[in-house]
């Protein structure tokens, strides 16, 4: 039985594959200059660790997905992935429209 507050959700936000990542490109070029020619591509992203006071893994997944969609990622340019406990949810293209605003 998992105690409340013990659930940690990990949220990974990255630019969509179709979006050019100038920072990732700069890092890749730096790697090449260091001799890591095998580094074919680098994409930079963001990582968030959420401590959630919710009773179940399902609740944590739901809340983390809502937070990621509404705040942590911008669906115009970014996609996100969530991991809670052992569960992993892949969200390729966020569609939840929390406040009714058309993006």
């Amino acid at each position, binding site marked *: 039985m998992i105690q409340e507050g013990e659930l940690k959700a990990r949220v990974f936000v990255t630019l969509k594959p179709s979006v*050019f990542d100038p920072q990732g490109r700069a890092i890749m070029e730096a790697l090449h200059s260091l001799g890591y020619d095998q580094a074919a591509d680098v994409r930079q992203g963001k990582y968030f660790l959420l401590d959630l006071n919710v009773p179940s893994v399902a609740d944590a997944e739901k809340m983390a997905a809502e937070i990621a969609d509404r705040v942590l990622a911008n669906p115009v340019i970014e996609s996100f992935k969530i991991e809670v406990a052992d569960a992993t949810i892949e969200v390729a293209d966020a569609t939840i429209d929390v406040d009714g605003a058309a993006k």
Partner: protein
Amino acid sequence: MTFAVVVFPGSNCDHEAQYMAETVLGQQVRMVWHKETSLSDVDVVILPGGFSHGDYLRTGAIARFSPIMGAVKAFAERGGPVIGICNGFQILQESGLLPGAMLRNRDLRFHCEYISIRVDQTDTPFTTLCTPGQVLRVPISHGEGNFFAETSVIDQLEKDRRVIFRYSNVHGEAIEAANPNGSVANIAGVCNERRNVVGLMPHPERASERRLGSDDGLILFRSAMDALATRGALQAV
């Protein structure tokens, strides 16, 4: 006429906007703290440039949830003229009032320089006094002004004539060499479907006196004054 200048924690062009409207144009200005919830007593809303909430998370991402944004949306829905400048544009994108999103500048550099933009559309409250194709000399000051939207969105914007300003050379040619940040189709500014909400990355408010380099930016705010004088002030709700 009363301009509202919304002040977020980290706004840093709010005083330039105030100075431009109050001192240069002789209009009333109300500085509106982001915790306020009403814009019923103003005619034009300016979301100024800066680094709201330190640009943490993403530019404009946290400011979007400020209490005043509900009033900005309601004001826009009533047809009120809203202009977002630089960070203000980014806030309008994050709020869903304007399309697209800003990526880091293509060359990863912060650009602070005078550039030229071409006015493509004159049927917004901020461009009525412009002539189509008019070139304005205005400064930019941003690290994340690389306008991006999916191709289908860009196509729709072009079809709806919602690209209002494009980076161009002094002759008004929107060529690649005149694109400072990598924006798709040299897009410097767009409007919403109803055309009353306009956002642009350059700073027209910083180009309001010739002795400081340019007064080309004034035409945007003079247009708004002219548009309101012609149409009459909005009824407060």
